[in-house]
């Protein structure tokens, strides 16, 4: 059953200066592989989602996703993804090296 969704509510009028694109790798644990996570995200947050690569096996789901929208909404979306158990990495994966 799909999760509850709410209408997108941007906090303020969109300004082009506030908009940004973020390129992310999402890694799903097996329990979330059958959940329509990207659809839920697009219902919860006023963001444009653009899938670039997807790999799903029984053990892990890996999605390469571009998010376009307000910085605050992108941050909130990332927080939500982490809360439901999706690991979120920048497209570079590891920026903080040893």
């Amino acid at each position: 059953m799909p999760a509850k969704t709410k209408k997108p509510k941007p906090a303020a009028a969109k300004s082009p200066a506030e908009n940004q694109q973020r390129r992310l790798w999402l890694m799903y644990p097996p329990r979330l592989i059958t959940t329509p996570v990207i659809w839920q995200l697009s219902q919860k947050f006023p963001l444009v989602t653009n899938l670039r690569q997807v790999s799903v096996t029984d053990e892990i789901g890996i999605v390469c996703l571009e998010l376009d929208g307000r910085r605050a909404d992108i941050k909130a979306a990332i927080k939500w993804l982490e809360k439901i158990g999706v690991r979120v990495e920048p497209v570079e994966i590891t920026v903080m090296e040893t």
Partner: protein
Amino acid sequence: MKALKCRECGREYPLEATHVCEFDFGPLEVAYDYARIKKSLTREAIASRPRSMWRYRELLPVAKEPTVGLQVGFTPLVKADRLAAQLGIRELWIKNDAVNYPTLSFKDRVVSVALSRAKELGFTTVACASTGNLANSVAAQAAAAGLKAYVFIPSDLEQGKIINSLVYGANVIGIKGHYDEVNRLCAEIAGKFGWAFVNVNMRPYYAEGSKSMAYEIIEQLGWRIPQHTIVPMASGSLLTKIQKGYQEFVKLGLVTESKYSIHGAQATGCSPISVAQKAGLDFFKPVKPDTVAKSLAIGTPADGFYALKAMKETNAHADDITDDEIRDAIKLLAETEGIFAETAGGVTVGVAKKLIAAGKIPHDSSAVICVTGNGLKTLDAVTGHVGQPREIKPSLREFEALLSAETVAA
């Protein structure tokens, strides 16, 4: 250099400061015109050049003569007979980047390339996000090159590691927060400020510096590829670049093609690639690092997939060892060969021991173990595990008594 090329789809891009494919976000890698390189890069030409990693400059991603880190590389390849006897292998060598110049780690290779290329592209500010060796090398080499440096670190990093960057006058910024937040912020900063971020927008060039370790191993072995090479894995990049280096020398006719395996070593407390390899998987699962080997503590290795592929292609194995085994291996290397390696060196020696004992590296073969950093940088890891000095009064009689007591005990 010919172009930057996507490792996933093969699309080509201009040789600029960019690192991911705009179509599938695959990582970009430098592609070369090997036919052209073959005409000038001969064994004789290499031998006539200074003893540094830049003696292979046609295969390193700079358009003109290098300008940063001219003394980096050509570290000793030490024949390790005493360690070989302990591990039970016919022939063993240590590629010793613990004495690399200027900051005693293999990272000097990649940073030297990244900064040389950054200068060519007109950058005056360089940056990195690091918890250790990378930060030190960027700070030192940027200082020597007259470049402004920003080094981002987690705010809770140990004081010793911070000083190793601060001393060079770099702008060291401690970021509060958990690892993932810090990591994502650094990616944002890298995208926003137009600096040469060595392991982000300069990554295609930076990573190529690792190949020089492979070239040196081949040349120092008398122009042959070792049957077995054991490499530490953090992001997995070094292992893939050792393979690329061996392949390039074969392609250029500088060495005869032979069978070789490039094995990967990790600490059990952070072993996503090793676990995947042992399970026969071609993907890894991210982990939360918990190991004394901080320089290998990357829970989501960016090149993990490619490292697994390289090991598969070379019929190699991966393994991992515990923190106690790492300390034992550091001691074993020090006591047999006089080389004090940082924890990552303990990991490679310990995993080599394990692979030889299991017959995965045959006893009658030859192997090279890559040591990538100096033990003086990770003293905390072995403190309390290497014994204590015995104290005596300033008396010859006391010293003789101590010696005779030890002789009796022995």
